[in-house]
């Protein structure tokens, strides 16, 4: 087998040193009745030529965003990725390393994560950010658990326009930990929020694409001693909108797929939790801190590990160990590449394309439902699913159907005006 380097002669010598005559003797502790005598039924190994053909054939069975015209987001976004990203994440100094437990030979990853934490803080105007979580949905659930532990309150509210994937993950965690998880309309918040409420979770922009006004809400929430958790599924919106820190968020749980990570059928990308200083001792996951070495030279280490599962063990409030470091690195390189100006410009392009799309759709008999959006919005039309099916035959993925007549539609910087015009033309032909 091509990934094992041993010659037969070497194997003999090694068996001798190990004090056994055959390899099977090394497995003597395995009960005879379970020791496999036959090969597993997983097929023969393929040569690299056959293998490549097989996997390429599988890939070719799906239609990629190159073959389809996507007007689809809903928690995963088709953005442009500059070539710098794969140039760096493809360096095996980074991608073949383990977690940086030994800082003296891991300064590259540690500094990159420190830079990532800094970028996230700048973008959200939070005081600190962790080294990454699995994704936005699990980050939101862990943010909930973090506040529940910090406040010792067991009621959690979430604004009803929350991405269903995020909602499902919150529900799983709440079921396991016996939390009272309740959906709330923001205008009726006063009725539900009380002294036993740990936090209010609000997605911004919300699932329907609307940009929420949260300044007053944050004061209302904090007035009850609860925390405002802002969930962000479209990180690029931070290049266009007010920062969570500025409108009073206590914690931000975010998905950063939009920064340099391909859609990849939903993973891997990364999530992150950022928060105000008062939650410093409660934030889950790894943190990289700056320090000095024995000669006073600056360097970086994993720090505040006393919070973490492998030290606190039985007292831990979160069990995350491996995170999504390489995806966080991709996001870091993305942000460094586009820069402050570039990020704002890309975000603006998204908004302009989405506005252009909305305007053009309004010219057909499709009704616009969301006002004040960033790059996605809901439209209403009779027979939405039939329309989607017909458009798919013409190569368009027209948004995500919320029900029989409502569709969540997205435009990014990759949906050019020409492409939008083509879509409108196709809709016109069908109507």
């Amino acid at each position, binding site marked *: 087998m091509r990934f094992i380097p041993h010659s037969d002669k070497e194997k003999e010598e090694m068996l001798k040193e190990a004090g056994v005559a055959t390899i099977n003797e090394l497995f003597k502790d395995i009960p005879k009745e379970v020791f496999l005598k036959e090969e597993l039924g997983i097929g023969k190994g393929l040569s690299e030529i056959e293998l490549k053909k097989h996997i390429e054939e599988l890939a070719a069975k799906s239609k990629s965003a190159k073959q389809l015209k996507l007007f689809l987001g809903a928690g995963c976004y088709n953005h442009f990725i500059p070539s710098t990203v794969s140039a760096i994440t493809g360096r095996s100094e980074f991608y073949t390393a383990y977690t940086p437990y030994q800082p003296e030979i891991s300064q590259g990853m540690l500094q990159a994560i420190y830079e990532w934490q800094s970028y996230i803080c700048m973008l959200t105007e939070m005081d600190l950010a962790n080294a990454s979580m699995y994704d936005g949905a699990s980050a939101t659930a862990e943010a909930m658990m973090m506040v529940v532990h910090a406040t010792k309150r067991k009621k959690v509210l979430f604004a009803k326009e929350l991405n269903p994937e995020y909602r499902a993950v919150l529900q799983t965690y709440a079921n396991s930990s016996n939390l009272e998880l309740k959906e709330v309309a923001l205008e009726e918040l006063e009725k539900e929020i009380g002294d036993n409420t740990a936090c209010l979770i609000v997605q911004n922009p919300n699932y329907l694409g609307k940009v929420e006004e949260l300044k007053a809400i944050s004061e209302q929430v904090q007035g009850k001693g609860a925390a405002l958790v802002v969930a962000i599924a479209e990180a690029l919106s931070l290049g266009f909108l007010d920062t969570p820190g500025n409108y009073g968020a206590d914690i931000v749980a975010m998905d950063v797929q939009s920064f340099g990570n391909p859609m990849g059928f939903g993973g891997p990308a990364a999530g992150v939790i950022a928060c105000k200083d008062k939650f410093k001792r409660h934030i889950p996951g790894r943190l990289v801190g700056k320090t000095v070495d024995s000669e006073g030279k600056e360097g970086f280490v994993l720090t505040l590990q006393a919070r973490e599962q492998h030290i606190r063990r039985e007292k831990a409030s979160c069990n*995350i160990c491996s995170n999504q470091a390489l995806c966080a690195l991709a996001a870091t390189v993305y942000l460094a590449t586009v820069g402050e100006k570039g990020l704002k410009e890309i975000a603006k392009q998204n908004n302009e394309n989405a506005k252009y799309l909305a305007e053009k759709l309004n010219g057909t008999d499709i009704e616009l439902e969301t006002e004040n959006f960033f790059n996605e919005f809901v439209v209403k039309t009779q027979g939405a699913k039939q329309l989607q099916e017909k458009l798919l035959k013409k190569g368009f993925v027209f948004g995500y159907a919320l029900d029989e007549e409502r569709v969540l539609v997205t435009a990014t910087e990759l949906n050019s005006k020409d492409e939008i015009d083509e879509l409108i033309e196709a809709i016109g032909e069908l109507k």
Partner: protein
Amino acid sequence: MKLVFEKGMNLSEVEVIRHYSTLSKLNFGVDFGFYPLGSCTMKYNPKINEDMAKLEGFTLLHPLQPVSTAQGALELMHNLEKMLCEICGFERFSLQPAAGANGELTGIMIIQAYFRKKRENRSKILVPDSAHGTNPASVSVCGFEAVEIKSDKDGNIDLGELKEKMTEDVAGIMITNPNTLGLFDQNILEVCKIVHEKGGLVYGDGANMNAMLGICKPKELGIDVMHLNLHKSFATPHGGGGPGSGPVGVIKELVEFLPIPLIEKKGEEYVFNYENENSIGKLRSFYGNFGVMVKAYTYLKAIGAEGIREVAEIAVLNANYLKEKLKKHYNLPFDRVCQHEFVLDDSKMPNGVTTNDIAKRLMDYGFHPPTVYFPLIVHGALMIEPTETETKETLDEFANAMIKIKEEAEKNPEIVKGAPHSTPVKRLDAVKAAREPNLRWKP
């Protein structure tokens, strides 16, 4: 090195590339040398895996695009699940968990859901002291009490203590087998029987699956639910801390609790099935770290049935070879045939040289250190896992370095205590980092 922001907020492409390429040179990966980090299975990551995962038919798929246009992705996931089922003997796998610990969380929630459905109130889960570090945390975040079970003098789970503690209020046990001492529990069948007889379930931590591939099936040992780490045994790179992937496999009786969606084949079409009656729900968005699955599937198709057993055989041979060479110089607290890894300690080191010193000095010899101070049951542990992809020559060089360090500890201990000498930074002040946390750059 200067931070990227200190160079500016709007950099040219060349500045960005030089910055991160230079940073990369301060990092050590498997491609640059031996990485015997115990229980992390740092084997070589075949390059074809990377190429395949980059195909646009995988990377440029939206998770919510019509399933009819994503058939290749579903087929790959379906095939991978079938292979994992065959390897482990389980009925079904969920590929959703994003990492090993996420798999543990999934598994413990499944156990919780199983007993809730039976209306049995079981509040504790047993965790042997030789289990993985995340296990007690996974138990407690689901609201169970973690009850420790001691190891016996041979490094097996203490059967007497197990019998005593396995009571009707215990939901089950979390076993790492082979355990973190690298030992296959000689009483594994008896352990599972004791737990099952009291109505409990057995959770298997599959982080050490590399030693069992094609050798035995976890289900046949008596394990009911188990996670695998695709980023360990299945050769996907660890990415400097992730992404990993931690699929969870279960016996037939537990399929109804698996996360949604499951992938089914209906006729010639692959579909997502959200109708799993008593599912615990979702652990993360969409379907998991799909890109990692592509790499693991590519690896399994490359090695095949004949290769997979060889992986375990050579991994175990490499570990035993290295163990025998080193036990003449270092204390080996559990002197038995080991599986994929073994644990030494620093008790024989002269002049107050510690495990940490040995680890740091190994860097000067060009090696990544082993896992240190874990498992906790061995004082000053050095947990060494060579994996199957290392040559005899590399193992010999590593053994020679370890022997040399022992000699240095005798004759010139300061060189070991002051190590590393050749790295970009010297030993870093972890106490300062924790006492005066500096976690971000400020403009």
